[in-house]
């Protein structure tokens, strides 16, 4: 193969990789502004991309929020979406990550009837073995809490279901990137950049 052809094949591989559907995490740093979440979500709506989970959180920098958005899409589309998100005036930065580029976690809560809990120690053992914990004990029910990836919290859900789960809820994903850069450093760079180039 000619060098050119090799490059071409590599390009194609990259391209296929970019067009494959997979879970992607989009992380958005924003200023505080009411309505901004709407501005971000309509960018997904416009391309008919379903948001699977979304979380809004404060960050270590005062006044700066982080949206963590989980979608299923291909990388190419997600990158175009991220470019559109960056255009929103109050957005400080937006990034797309694949699963191996982040540390991430979700939190699930399970409400189980007290009656089941009292029948032997099966539930207790389940809780212990799955790395969950008991969050609250009320007269009629207990609340179990588990953090983990989707499949882990779902696994416990499946196991508890036969006992008559009263309620189940799972939070949106939260994630931190594997890069070492601090948010504050990133913001400082931004500020510098906006000073140089404002006309």
């Amino acid at each position, binding site marked *: 193969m000619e060098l050119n052809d090799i490059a071409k094949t590599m390009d194609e591989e990259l391209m296929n990789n970019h067009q494959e559907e997979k879970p992607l995490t989009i992380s958005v740093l924003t200023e505080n502004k009411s309505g901004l979440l709407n501005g971000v979500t309509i960018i997904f709506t416009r391309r008919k991309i379903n948001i699977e989970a979304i979380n809004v959180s404060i960050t270590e920098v005062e006044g700066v929020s982080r949206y963590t958005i989980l979608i299923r899409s291909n990388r190419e589309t997600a990158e*175009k979406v991220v470019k559109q998100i960056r255009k929103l*005036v109050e957005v400080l930065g937006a990034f797309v990550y694949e699963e191996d580029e982040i540390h991430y976690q979700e939190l699930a809560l399970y409400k189980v009837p007290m009656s089941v809990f009292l029948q032997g120690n099966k539930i207790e053992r389940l809780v212990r073995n799955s790395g969950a914990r008991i969050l609250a004990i009320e007269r009629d029910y207990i609340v179990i809490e588990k953090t983990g990836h989707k499949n882990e919290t779902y696994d416990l859900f499946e196991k508890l279901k036969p006992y008559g789960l009263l309620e189940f809820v799972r939070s949106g994903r939260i994630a931190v990137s594997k890069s070492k850069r601090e948010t504050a450093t990133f913001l400082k760079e931004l500020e510098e950049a906006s000073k140089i*180039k404002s006309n």
Partner: protein
Amino acid sequence: METLLTSTTQEGKKMTEKISGSEAVIKSLIMEGVNTVFGYPGGAIMPIYDTLYHYEDRLKHILVRHEQGAIHAAQGFARVSGEVGVCFATSGPGATNLITGIADASIDSTPIVCITGQVTSKLLGTDAFQETDVIGISMPVTKWNYQVTKADEIPEIIARAFYIAKSGRPGPVLIDITKDAQFDSLDFHYKKCEGIRSYHPVPKLDLKKVDQAAELINSAKKPYLLVGQGVLLAHAEKELKDFAEKTGIPVASTLLGLSAFSDDHELNVGFLGMHGNYGPNIKTNECDVLIAVGMRFDDRVTGDLSTYAKQAKVIHIEIDPSEIDKNVKTDIAINADAKEALKALISRVDQKQHSAWLQEFRDCDKLEQEKVINTTLAPETEKLKMAEVIKLVSDKTKGEAVIVTDVGQHQMVASRYYQFKKPKSNVTSGGLGTMGFALPAAFGAKVAAGDKEVIAVIGDGGFQMTIQELGSIFQYKVPVKIIVLNNNFLGMVRQWQQLFFDKRYSSTELVNPDFVRISEGYGIEANRVSEREKIDDAIDKMLAYDGAYFLEVEVEREDNVFPMVPAGAGVSDIRLE
């Protein structure tokens, strides 16, 4: 810049004056150098209009007849002046009537600040009279929007609005101000916005990319330059000319890029896109290096992307990073202001000529001349063709008028046959294709253009979408020239019906009123021609007339615009007939 309104006292403290929110709006606009506002009053914006009454000598307000007219007028004003266009509307229907124009300004990168009145903040969310969520409605079509509920936010928000509207890739901004914020008072102090931490309108030019681009350009055998409105928005007409002349690269223009590069320049090979010239389309798929400047590879330019310029290496100079690699994959992306990038390129490229390559375009021109242009300009039809009219207007104005077109066949014909010689002289609705744009945009353009001739070219369909603005033209004596090319059809749709729907003319025939009498009813001098012998005189008379003038030309009813790249086809499939 500190304003005159604030002076510094001995102690170094800033002196401010206490004024109402509505007065702060007007003063802020004046601080931003605004001298004309287009608008329409109503309950929720009455305090601002009341203040305006006292400022008429410093801020001219043009009362339109419909809020869509206000925003299109502001767009026309902005496109010709390069300044921010400003419009006012009341809450509810006033605000929603602006939306089409906002969407138009957004997709065509026009700097606009819209100020809408809103119900009192206590009533927000209660379905109060004339309350609509204009922030929510306008969010997808504005570059930025903000609802002001406190008077003291006004100066800073207006400063931000202007900064955002005009910086980087320009766009429309909307500020919604509740009635109580207009009434309440504040300590007024104005400071222009000089930067926003989260907003980086002008990316830093990466000289490494410029070097790579220069190298590629220098080694190209068939380089080809595509230019869009970004060149005009960056005021880079001179840099474009210098760059083209030094490299000898043929230049073609998008619809909105027309007038950035003089039509009589020997390197100008014409107009791109669905109804563009033959050579510019065909050669896209034959060049080896494609240099796109300030254009966004709209589908009306590219046709089928899977067959678009696949053989070429693509250099994309573009200020908006989200446009890069959006439709066409680039080999070298220069994310920068067009002027800055071209300037840097000029010093790095070799002086060259590409005579043989240029000749290929000229050969295509010959074919287009024979197959299309000759029969269009000297037709055997009894009725006039649109192109004959435009050609005459072009010759008689020496290509120096500002041409404002609506949407449809006449728009494509005007873009094809008017020889634009002056920058910013082409005003049209490109990305959105908004019928009804031209009449209000033309009077807004005329307000900005001063002595320059402004001529609106409109179809009989689009004319009736905003015909009420004849009232504004009359009231403010705006000496704009209006040509309606009347084919008694929604011509462009009819053309598609003829070509792609077996001539089933479903709801495209128009039974029109007497436009001349309507214009006269508005106090506008008017004339109608249908004969070829009379058109010359009629245009002379129109151009010589001191004041607004309406000219209706009855043209061939079932004429088609060619060449044409059928929807979904590739640029190589351009049809000459």
